[in-house]
């Protein structure tokens, strides 16, 4: 095409004639790029400042211990496991004034390894990595730095690694209680769940939740249907495989809103999002749907982490990330740290249903006492949390 030739020769001519201009362009582009990396590095630099400021009375102790967290892609403010782990560090610093803490955010999975490497270089006393997705990066770093202590949230290693404390939570147990409660509170006869990603730490919640709904139907002769998660019929013991609704994203709240709207359009009136901050989108949808639509929050007590939606939360299906991260940090600071696997369950209060807050008076006393009985039944092993042990619907 003649036109292309024209513009190409034009370009070449211009380039020859106006070197000054090209140089200015290069400088500008460099400035823009520099600004980008400034924003990135400033993020971590001032986090450090914030971390130090927040640590109370640090001057009182000569001995300093630095606790560091690498977040998952959900970010530090996800009202969920990243935020909980950070709250654990804060709690540890409140107990032991010698502890200072900071975090680095991962904006994609490719940030895990460099973030961990940064913290190793900064000589952190313990590095907390958050999330199932970070298991490989943590393991690799732990193997190559055997004296660096790690704790990882939401994972177990087999065999255990001696310098990593893996924190795992049997959230199918409190998920079961949440499912039972959701079924009891539903008037439409349908309840729905969705996940952030099809990974075991998410589906273990959904699995227990669906089991709770089915158990409710069985003992009460009802037909409440759980939408959004269908546990696989045949699967290996300990597996939480199945098929369901996932946003495949832990950052785009609009997807959570959309999936909750889908579930409600299909009849569900109690929604249980297992998707960190994406669940806030579900809360927006439930609020928009108006009276008669409720939800259950996940990981943390929703009335504390997302108080603007407290009136929608029947309860929260929580796991004790805060106390277990706090304990791991304190033990590392004291020098009593032991690697291995920790499993939180109903029996050791590692997982639990949160208080009912606004719903305290709305949940029938009969249901509340049934939940207490169910809890001890699950602890004693009399009640199975496997959904396949109960008939569907």
């Amino acid at each position, binding site marked *: 095409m003649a036109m292309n030739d024209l*513009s190409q020769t034009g370009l070449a001519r211009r380039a020859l004639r106006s070197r000054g201009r090209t140089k200015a362009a290069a400088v500008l*582009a460099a400035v*823009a790029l520099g600004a*980008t990396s400034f924003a990135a590095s400033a993020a971590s630099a001032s986090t450090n400042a914030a971390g130090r400021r927040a640590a109370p009375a640090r001057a009182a102790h000569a001995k300093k211990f630095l606790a560091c967290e690498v977040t998952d892609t959900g970010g530090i*403010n996800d009202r969920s496991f990243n935020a909980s782990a950070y709250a654990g560090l804060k709690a540890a610093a409140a107990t032991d004034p010698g502890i200072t803490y900071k975090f680095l955010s991962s904006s994609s999975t490719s940030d895990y390894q460099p973030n961990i490497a940064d913290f190793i270089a900064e000589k952190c006393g313990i590095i907390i990595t958050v999330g199932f997705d970070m298991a490989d990066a943590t393991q690799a770093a732990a193997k190559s730095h055997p004296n660096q202590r790690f704790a990882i949230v939401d994972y177990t290693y087999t065999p255990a690694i001696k310098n990593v404390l893996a924190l795992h939570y049997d959230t199918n147990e409190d998920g079961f209680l949440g499912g039972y409660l959701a079924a009891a509170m539903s008037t439409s006869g349908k309840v729905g769940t969705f996940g952030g990603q*099809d990974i075991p730490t998410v589906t273990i919640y959904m699995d227990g939740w669906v089991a709770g709904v089915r158990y409710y139907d069985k003992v009460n002769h009802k037909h409440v249907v759980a939408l959004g998660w269908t546990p696989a019929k045949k699967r290996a013991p300990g597996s939480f495989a199945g*098929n369901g609704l996932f946003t495949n994203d832990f950052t785009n*709240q*609009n997807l959570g809103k959309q999936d909750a709207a*889908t579930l409600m359009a299909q009849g569900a009136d109690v929604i249980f999002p297992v998707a960190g901050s994406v669940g806030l989108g579900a809360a927006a949808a439930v609020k928009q749907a108006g009276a008669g639509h409720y939800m259950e929050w996940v990981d943390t007590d929703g009335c504390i982490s997302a108080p603007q939606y407290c009136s929608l939360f029947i309860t929260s299906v929580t796991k004790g990330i805060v106390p277990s991260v706090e304990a791991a940090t304190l033990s590392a600071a004291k020098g009593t740290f032991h690697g291995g696997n920790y499993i939180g369950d109903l029996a050791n209060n590692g997982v639990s249903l949160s208080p009912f807050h606004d719903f305290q008076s709305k949940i029938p006393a009969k249901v509340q006492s049934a939940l207490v009985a169910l809890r001890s039944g699950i602890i004693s092993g009399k009640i199975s949390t496997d959904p396949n042990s109960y008939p569907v619907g």
Partner: protein
Amino acid sequence: MSMTGVVAPDGLVAAAAERVAPSGRVRGMGVFLVLLAFVAVLGFVSSVSSRAHATFLLSAPPAVGVSPLTMSVRWTAGALAVLCAALGVLLVLRREQRGAYLIFGVGFATFLWAFLVWAARGAQLNFVQMLVTTLISTTPLVFGSLSGVMCERSGVINIAIEGQFLAGAFLGAMVGSVTGDLWLGMLAGAVAGGLFGWLLAFLALRYAVDQIIVGVVIVAFCTGLTNFLTEQVLTPDQTTLNSPQTFAPIAIPLLDKIPILGPVLFDENVFVYLAAILLVVVNFGLFRTRWGLRVRAVGEHPRAAETVGIHVLSVRYRNVVLGGVIAGIGGASFTIGSVGEFSSEMTAGLGYVALAAMIFGRWKPFGALGASLLFGFSVSLQSFLAVLNVGIPSPFLAMAPYVITIAVVSGLVGRVRPPAADGAPYSRE
């Protein structure tokens, strides 16, 4: 289309040629429809029991109630498959090439209908909500692709849409939250987008920096900046700085009572209506006004435009800034038009999807709308299929929007032709 005098002749020929589908492709589309019909017969007719029924819910308040539509899966899917095959045969035999896309579209829709009937067997499918979700997921893409159209028709490539989305979402949420006035929030989003549009124009036009590189840098900059400000500014003071209200849906009197369409089209929030208005305005402006003729002239052959007295750089400046403003408003729809909170990287790459929609739509507003609707429908479809539990593994469902869009678009659209001077810097000799 009257592009007299300023457009290279080969451009006119290409524009005329793309209106009629080549005969080979028409035959290919016909064969494809017949194949789809076979799939429907095997998958949706012979595999289900003759007593299986599917129910489509067709009403949502406040529209006049439409009673649910209950269909026998076997008979409905069978009839639709026959229709689909007949349309395919028609396409293969027809000499006339005009209208081929319409026939293909109808044929594809019959297949889709058969598929939905099968997917909803023994259950209920809320068809109205499915369309609502489609429209809502399409809206930001419409803003994004209109932004692209505005820029590229004048000859500047804007791949910074994602960055302008983020800037608009961030500032829209913050201003909307602090002032408590959502309209100010929308304005702030527009300003944020416009500002980065101006930066793109400034670097690309004043200093002739490669437009792709500037775009990438702006996206990276906006991502870093919004992440940083979210962690440092918004998070510590979430309740004042990052909890705006959201625009409530506005029901248009009478129109919202139309069965099925009413709740889908006429009970939406202001962003949906604004997207529709902008779509019409930009389309009319570009192809029916003197301004549009000038913009297109500048995008096709700037030197010729200059010789007839059009100031090329100021046309480009104005369009790129306006494009940024549109993308900024689209960004604000993520926060104050939807969830009422900004979170890091919440636009999740949709700016790039909008860019792709614009290209698939051949740099035309309504073409881009078509591609955006297809993507939005696929997003909605996969969500409903997951709830209906049709037995497709969830990772495959997650891929569906992208796979469907790529397959349909690459099969139907074929070669596209950007504005001739798109991306080329311009300076007076």
